[in-house]
């Protein structure tokens, strides 16, 4: 990964483990990727692949213990976030990095109004007179496309629809003009039509404010709409990364190929869907060698013993599968 000034976030060889009495779950096991300025990077993978833990580590929100950062660094504007203490991290979180979660109803406090909660997000990082905070909250709601913002500020979360709540969450994430937004499955709980609106909103806001977005999702369809670059995660590692078109059109890792082949759609009608045999491994008992080898149709003997090398294709496209690389 070449150095350039355009780099905003750089995660290098990050390892996050969770310890319990008799086992260690290696949730994130050596993950490296960059997010450039004004770029959208998608972390995509199935449940338990470590995508959310990666995002939480960037925000400094991994509970320690049982969690443990076992190695690597997270450089945000050339500063290693893992070196910061709680107070310094508080400065970054919400201020320079905003976060949007999956379930807006559980991340909004039901007993405070929308206005209280957006105001709080501003006040944590900045001091401003009350009327200015109200004004800025109204502007934020307007920016995320909520009609009649003055009235909505007095509403409680339950009075809003799912799509509106997610807009409020985005407004809160934007409150301090962050440079990076981390969006963890922001549209998973929403209807397709509302999902389309929220995706478009995020895109517009990103352009207007020249922000970067780290998008975490399991939905390859959503990825194809929003991503500039894609990192496909499996069992705590990045199996493949590269530009969107390269990864979706010419996938070089058997896992990515299998995922795309198993997506149902109209064109595959009447044909049998490819299905990946078996299930995702338990992070505490991952197989030796390549974690995907028990489910892989290209697996050969070395896959069972050696941890696979990252193989480089053109234009920043990497895949951790020497078997397909050598073919």
């Amino acid at each position, binding site marked *: 990964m070449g150095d350039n000034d355009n780099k905003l976030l750089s995660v290098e060889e990050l390892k996050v483990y969770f310890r319990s009495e008799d086992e260690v779950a290696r949730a994130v096991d050596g993950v490296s990727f960059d997010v450039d300025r004004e770029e959208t990077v998608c972390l995509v993978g199935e449940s338990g692949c470590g995508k959310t833990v990666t995002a939480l580590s960037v925000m400094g929100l991994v509970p320690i213990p049982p969690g443990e950062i076992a190695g690597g660094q997270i450089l945000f504007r050339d500063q290693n976030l893992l070196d910061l203490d709680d107070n310094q991290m508080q400065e970054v979180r919400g201020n320079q990095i905003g976060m949007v979660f999956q379930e807006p109803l559980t991340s909004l406090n039901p007993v405070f109004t929308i206005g209280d909660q957006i105001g709080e997000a501003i006040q944590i990082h900045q001091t401003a007179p009350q009327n200015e905070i109200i004004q800025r909250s109204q502007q934020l709601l307007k920016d995320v496309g909520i009609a009649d913002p003055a009235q909505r500020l007095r509403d409680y979360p339950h009075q809003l629809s799912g*799509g509106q709540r997610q807009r409020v969450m985005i407004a809160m994430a934007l409150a301090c003009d962050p440079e990076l937004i981390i969006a963890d499955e922001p549209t998973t709980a929403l209807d397709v039509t509302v999902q389309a609106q929220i995706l478009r909103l995020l895109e517009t806001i990103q352009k207007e404010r020249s922000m970067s977005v780290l998008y975490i999702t399991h*939905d390859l369809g959503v990825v194809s709409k929003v991503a500039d670059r894609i990192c496909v995660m499996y069992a705590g590692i990045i199996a493949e990364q590269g530009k969107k078109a390269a990864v979706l059109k010419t996938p070089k890792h058997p896992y990515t190929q299998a995922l795309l082949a*198993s997506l149902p759609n109209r064109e595959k009608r009447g044909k049998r869907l490819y*299905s990946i045999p078996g299930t995702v491994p338990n992070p505490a008992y991952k197989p030796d060698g390549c974690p995907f080898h028990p489910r892989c149709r290209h697996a050969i003997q070395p896959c069972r013993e050696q941890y696979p090398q990252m193989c480089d294709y053109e234009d920043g496209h990497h895949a951790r599968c020497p078997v397909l690389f050598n073919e």
Partner: protein
Amino acid sequence: MNAMGSHNNTILQVEDLKKYFPIRRGFFQKITGWVRAVESVSFIIEKGKTLGLVGESGCGKTTVARLILKLLDADHGKILFNGLDITQLDEKEMKPLRKEIQIIFQDPYGSLNPRMTVGQSIAEGLKIAGIHSRAQQDQRLEKLLKMVGMSPASSDRYPHEFSGGQRQRIGIARALSVEPALIICDEPVSALDVSIQAQIINLLKDLQRQLELSYLFISHDLNVVGYLCDKVAVMYKGHIMEYAPADALFDHPIHPYTHLLLSAIPDADSSDTELMATADEASNTLNPPAGCSFQDRCPLAEERCQKGALEFIKAAPDHLVRCWKVTRNGTYSF
């Protein structure tokens, strides 16, 4: 053959189904309004085929499922199962029919008793089906588990010991235990990961072929519906807006709402399609306007859309659309 195209291959015919829920307020629980959850729903499911019922949350899809299962009583309309109107049956008359219509839920964990082993859960169905001898039960149990791709040893284990995909297989085995003819699949794969989703979809297809099952497949995922279903009914605020064979619906969608839904599909294969500009999200079904229920979001709405009830218009012999703007010969396009 009647208006909806019914013939003796039909397993389920739903005609003009309505269900309103009262809203009660105040100390005396006075009825202050009605939620029109299902308002004029008609469709047909043929033997061995799959009908997809799609729509956004709150459009009434699940209420339709509950009406067909007779977990709720319809306010109006007919549900003909093999020609017999089940809305008229009382609890006793319904009992033998109950095992003909089964359901698979979205969240199999919520629908399996955590204190019963998988074997016990499935055996409940077998007892209802009249298989009481232990030996016969065990034999049938083994066969059912094999059918859904699980090892017979799993019958002694508890639901929490299984992954989401395995639990969904157990849910399917339990539905199959009474040898139903029709299975209502209520979002059966939406909670599953992509790789597991493909396994379950393949399983549902295999079972359909082996056992000649008919499915009512309720989903909001148009990619899955496009893959799996023979016919599709698009539902909006209690109305069926468009009803057509899957190919016709996806290739030549007619209703503006179908266009809206299709344009919102995120599809990994066509990364360059633009997201259609949509109006606000669906308002509630509390006080619907007169006329077309989609008028407030429709980009083509005009004055006549606010008047009177809409009837289905035949754009093609088996392609029905609830929209003024469709011409009788189906030449309608945007």
